[in-house]
């Protein structure tokens, strides 16, 4: 189970409206037909953080250990898509993998 804050891309002091806005933006970007598993995860994350009571409960009671994806998201979040440089493409075409 992913860290819901990282999944929704919000800070740990986010309030109700920030949580909702992040959730709506996330499901718009990833509707269920595109990635059903991620959609479910987003929904679950939202349910965990929806209200202040939910967020405090999550901090107190959630025992889920971090996943590699949490560590990656926390240390170096995903940014805008990039294009490879020509050298990388050439090495791929040369069969260097």
């Amino acid at each position, binding site marked *: 189970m992913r*860290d819901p804050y990282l999944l929704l891309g919000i800070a*740990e002091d986010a309030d109700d409206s920030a949580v909702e806005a992040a959730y709506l933006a996330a499901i718009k970007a*990833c509707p269920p037909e*595109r*990635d059903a*598993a*991620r959609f479910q*995860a987003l929904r679950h994350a939202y349910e965990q953080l929806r209200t*202040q*009571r939910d967020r*405090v*409960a999550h*901090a*107190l*009671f*959630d*025992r*889920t*250990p*971090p996943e*590699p*994806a*949490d*560590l*990656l998201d*926390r*240390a*170096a*979040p*995903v*940014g*805008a*898509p*990039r*294009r*490879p*440089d*020509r050298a*990388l*493409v*050439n*090495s*791929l*075409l*040369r*069969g*260097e*993998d």
Partner: protein
Amino acid sequence: MSKKQKRRAASRSRKPSQLPPETLAEQARQHLDANRFRDAIADFKQLLKQEPRPEWRDGLADAYAGRANELAAKGMHKEAMVMWDNRAALGADVPPSVDHLMMLIRTGRLESALDQLAESSKMAKADQDRLRSAIAAQTLAQGADIADRLPAEDPIRRQAPAASAALDAYCAGNDPALREALSGIPFRSPYRDLAQILKALQMLPDSPKEATRALERVADDSGFAPLKQAAELALLPESAFLKEALRAHGNRMRMACMLRGWPDARIALLGELSQLGDHAKPDALLAFIHKRGSQLGEGWAIRKTLRLLLPNFPNSIQRFKALGPPGLSDLEEILIDCWYFEEIEDLHSTAHGWSGLAGELIYRAKEGSATQEDRLRIALALRRADRFSDILSASPDEDHVPPHVQQMILSEVEQSLDWDPEDRDTYLRLIDFYRARGRAKDARRILAAASERWPEDMRVLQASMETAIDSGAFKKASTIARRILEIDPINTEVRDALVDAHLAHARKQMLKNRSDLAAKELDAAREWARSTHASEQLDITAGLNRLDNDLEAGLSELGRVAERLGNGLDAQVAMVLAADAVRRIPSSLLKSLKLRQITRPDADDLLAALARLRRFLDRGGKPSERVKDTLSKPLAKAVWGQLQRQDAESACETLRRAGLDDVRQKAAKAALKQWRGAPIFEMHAFEAKYPHGCYDGFNHEVLRLESALDRARQEGDTRTAIRIQNVLDRSFGPFGRGPSPFQFSPDDFEPEPLMDESPLDPFIEMIEEVGLEQAMEAIQMPKPLRKDLRKVAREQGEGALIDLLDILSEGLLAGGLPGGPPPPRNPPPKGGKPKPASKSDDKPDDEDPPTQLDLFS
């Protein structure tokens, strides 16, 4: 010796075959067809030494090609190249293979590849295209080195500048230039696959479906396939991508990561994490977090560290300390203890753990000014043990903790409302808890606080109505129900709850002989009844109520309802359940309504009757023995084989819940005739026959049930398999299969007598079935008693005697009959006379005590 060494040794020790050439050729062909290329190579080589036949040389060429591809697939490119070279050395007329040329390109032997390209006209068209696409890809990757060696008019050379410009434009993010460059690449170009891939990449990340479709047009063995594969990786769903990324490395994955927006730092971190394996151990992650604490954020790192300590707690604490971080705070230590107790499901320690944490938080809150978050934290800690272990479950049957623990939790949950008074669920949970245990005063106290905060909330209003019904405050309940229905006019639950409450109250009044008050209750209930079922219930109860004052009118009313219900089994079930609820003798009522003569119900009637019985059970009804006895016979007459499978399953389940095991057995056996060996029916047939288990472990029915268990498992019907297993477990008992080592088997123990059945009931029912004389004979009744009963029967009729015995029976159930038999339940109906047993009965004996009249004869 390693496998490789063994293989080499085996290869060296291969001796020439002694087979005649034709047989050896046949064997070589068989090896080739079965992809045993090494054996095929050996055989064909031996044959060619004997005679250079063209077909044997072709066979050897095929065997070399097969082996080369086999080695290449294993990543043994150098070894594969040797095979290709061997193949090429067989003669100039051996047709060039595209795989060979691809291998030449891969290993950097472009000169040889280009030489063979000149001969490519001998290849199939598809192979030619594949080869040209591979050389085109190398032309782009290696630049002028290759292009200059191609003829000037060769499309690979001619279109290379446009393709290279397109690639540059894509990499630079210059889409207009990309479009322009792509327009310079014709459809039948060796760079066509590149054009498709670049178009697909342009669609990322907004149009993944279109991008996927574009990539599908590129063959997997195209020279540009590595680019296609990188794009396909980038298109994977998030979770699958990360899984793949942790496994795969290299340029393909690097390009995919870039396409997904991964910064270089993240890609580098991925490399580090992938070394921890697919399922990184908590200790490894702990070390990773400790090492990168500042990058991850110290607060976040410590929170996640706590969670990683849990799997091997408490030993993990030592390993954590060895890493050298600052120790855990008091609160963190208590928190991890609480999680640990939850993990090992230690209910008692869990309750005390959270209580301790709440105490610590309260102490700190009182020292300083508590924020809203502090207050919530306290409230949630106070509620946690209950929520985690469901200690304040609404059903008292599910109480699973000692009373003092329950009391402690209850007090903490109530206390939590001081810290977080806005949690409606907690109010409702407490109300349900108190209501289920009959603590109306406490329920009302919590309800008052909830109603003050949420006066118009539906759930709170509904709880208010239910609490009012519990206390018999029907008027108040009606007022609340009206408020609920104003907000939610189609709330059937509220209507049904009110109708049920009024009905229950009406029945109570009927038992107290207050038919006038009962009628009022029924009138009040009618105001709320909307469903057909509710109306039926009210009509039947009204008819039963009327019987006391006006027998004919009551019977007529009930007759009309029975007719409405089809005068069949469904009508019987409806009348029996309603009569029993007001302690009437169901069989007598059926007799009076002439409903006992129904022989075989059709499928619709049977299903309707079962649905009615199911509804009764769903609402918490429990059929009395009298009901079961009365319904057993008509139900047993039903043709159970006429039901569909789903209906038959549902019927068996209803009969199980109703305790009608004889009928269930019949229904299950009928179903087994249609669906031979069906595990669910095997279970019902067995369980109905042996409700307490069969202790003869070698009984053929036990063996049959075991076969049904196997079949259920094979069919993936886990639910039925579990149920059968439970039935079998009940049969084997604590000493396994076979008889108990003790003198008595559990079957020898009689079930506890049911509290709702008086010792007189079987006798009463016997009289109804076989008549007074035979009943007295059957129970060997003493002669003086027989004389007395005969006298009553002679004077009042057998029906009146039955009613008299019924009153005695009720008296016994109610705790004895002080001062002799009670007065009759009802006065004789106005104008009604008991049915005379003889002419002398026509004159009532005023000196005799009033006796119960047979209202149904």
